[in-house]
């Protein structure tokens, strides 16, 4: 994205800062970093403590090592339901994000690259849908699924998760920026059909953007709590966030220490995705900011 390039050209200007201002800025930033990272640090430390001692000691430093044993314990409670929950989360998020990204890419591409009657209306409706969050539609969805008998099936979780107005919006911004009209025109002159051009020319150019869309949607589905909590009753169908909340509200039926280790395990896939794919995150956030 252009904005990230701009930062490289900005003069670094080591000289015109005073030690006092450097100290002040760094002190505040370190304080902020402590606030943001302390809870995650606490979770990591607690998860490594021996079983049953998650809350002993200072909370911020290690005290014995029981991580391996703890993990085994989490996967053992309730006949290993935790493993099922993690797989469910991966299945729901992966499937919905994959199908959703393709559908969003097609729709966004059409809005960005074709002039057609009704385009303004379609784009307006999508923008409005970006603004009204999905959660608002969850209760109505539950009522509708209840009527047509879709409750307690994976489809009840997947179908709403596939639709991502924000993904369409991102795809249209990226397609407008990155796919040159000349390339599409050249494809037409070569006798390629519109869908062929989309698949073998435009999709390729848009690949980095598609990764961004996939990531945003994957995380959104993974983090969605209200929808699965309402439409999936059967514990073996639930994703990990619903399962964990159930454990944490079980009034000690599942030991608090086990909940801590489960919480720790449930965020590992997302933290890895964040750390390794930072570039794509920034691309998505930047597109949101410029518009």
């Amino acid at each position, binding site marked *: 994205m252009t904005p990230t390039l701009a930062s490289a050209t900005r003069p670094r200007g080591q000289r015109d800062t005073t030690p006092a201002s450097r100290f002040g*800025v760094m002190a505040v930033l370190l304080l902020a970093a402590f606030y943001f990272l302390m809870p995650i640090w606490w979770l990591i430390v607690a998860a490594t403590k021996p079983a049953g001692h998650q809350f002993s000691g*200072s909370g911020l430093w290690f005290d014995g090592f029981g991580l391996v044993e703890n993990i085994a314990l989490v996967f053992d409670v309730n006949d290993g339901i935790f493993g099922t929950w993690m797989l469910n989360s991966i299945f729901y998020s992966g499937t919905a994000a994959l199908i959703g990204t393709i559908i969003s890419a097609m729709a966004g591409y059409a809005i960005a690259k074709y002039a057609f009657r009704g385009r303004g209306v379609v784009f307006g409706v999508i923008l409005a849908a970006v603004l009204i969050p999905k959660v608002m539609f969850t209760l109505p969805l539950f009522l509708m699924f209840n009527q047509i008998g879709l409750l307690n099936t994976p489809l009840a979780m997947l179908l709403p998760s596939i639709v991502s107005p924000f993904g369409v919006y991102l795809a249209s911004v990226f397609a407008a920026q990155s796919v040159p009209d000349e390339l599409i025109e050249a494809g037409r002159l070569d006798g390629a059909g519109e869908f062929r051009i989309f698949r073998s020319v435009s999709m390729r150019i848009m690949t980095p953007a598609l990764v961004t869309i996939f990531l945003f949607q994957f995380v959104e589905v993974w*983090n969605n*709590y209200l929808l699965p909590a309402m439409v999936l009753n059967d514990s073996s169908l639930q994703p990990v966030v619903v399962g964990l909340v159930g454990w944490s509200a079980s009034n000690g039926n599942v030991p608090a220490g086990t909940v801590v280790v489960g919480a720790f395990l449930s965020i590992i896939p997302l933290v890895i995705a964040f750390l390794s794919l930072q570039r794509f995150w920034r691309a998505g956030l930047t597109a949101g900011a*410029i518009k």
Partner: protein
Amino acid sequence: MTTVTTNGASARVRIWRTPWLFLTPFLVLFAAMYLAPIAFAFIQSLFTLQRDGLGLTAPTLTFDPFANYARVFTDDEFLASLGRVLLFGIVQVPVMLGLALFIALLIDSKSARGRGFFRLGSFLPFAVPGVVAAVMWSFLYSPVTSPINGFLESAFGFSIPFFSDGLALWSVANVVTWCWTGYNMLIIYSALQTIPAETLEAAKIDGASSWRTAWSIKIPMVRPALILTTVFSIIGSAQLFNEPTVLKSISGGAITSTYTPLMAAQSQVAAQNYPYAAAESVVLALLVGVTSFVFFKITGRGDR
């Protein structure tokens, strides 16, 4: 559609049809998963549920278009929950965005070192699912396990009553702030990066201080990003559900099952009072839609 022809008329038909073919999968699912449920909920909200006194027969539905809506606006618990998220939004949104803007400006300032670390450090909480963050904070708050209170007790001899009547809402606000500040900070920071270097150079030549530059140049220039994050945060407040739901179980009664409008509607679903739950969610969706529309109009983004 895929055949290329030199005939002008059919080429025009092809171009006319193609975008709609690309849009069809999305539009069909969008209609089924967004428009249909809202329409269904609206229709259902026009009926009332009649149970006979003994509960021996199945409840029957009667068409009574205003009954549920009249009840929504006289339902003390629902109105109280609306007031609560309003208070929450008025306090939490400015605090969070002020913090996000402040951190973004500091990371952008020339005195900052380790920009990458601070950017990522603030953003990392966003990787933690909202409910998992709430589960985590529930241990940090819990009277039994809180390491925060453990530290305060041993060092200063006092502890924070996180779930007292006065503090419970702000304990919830803290979890939300923790999750979303970094996300908003990165949006604002990205906007700061688009300010041309010459503009900042000119300000420096004119002798403007860093504070002055931040206030008079940087903040006005990231206004669109601030508006965007404000709207998303207002909407986020209105749909407050995950954090209070998770914290409820350890709050000792300070957080009730009708704490926020969405929790109130959900508790009606749990009581199988579907028409009334439908009315509550229609009212809530309308309020959110109108609020963000008005905000966009006021700030002049809507009239593009």
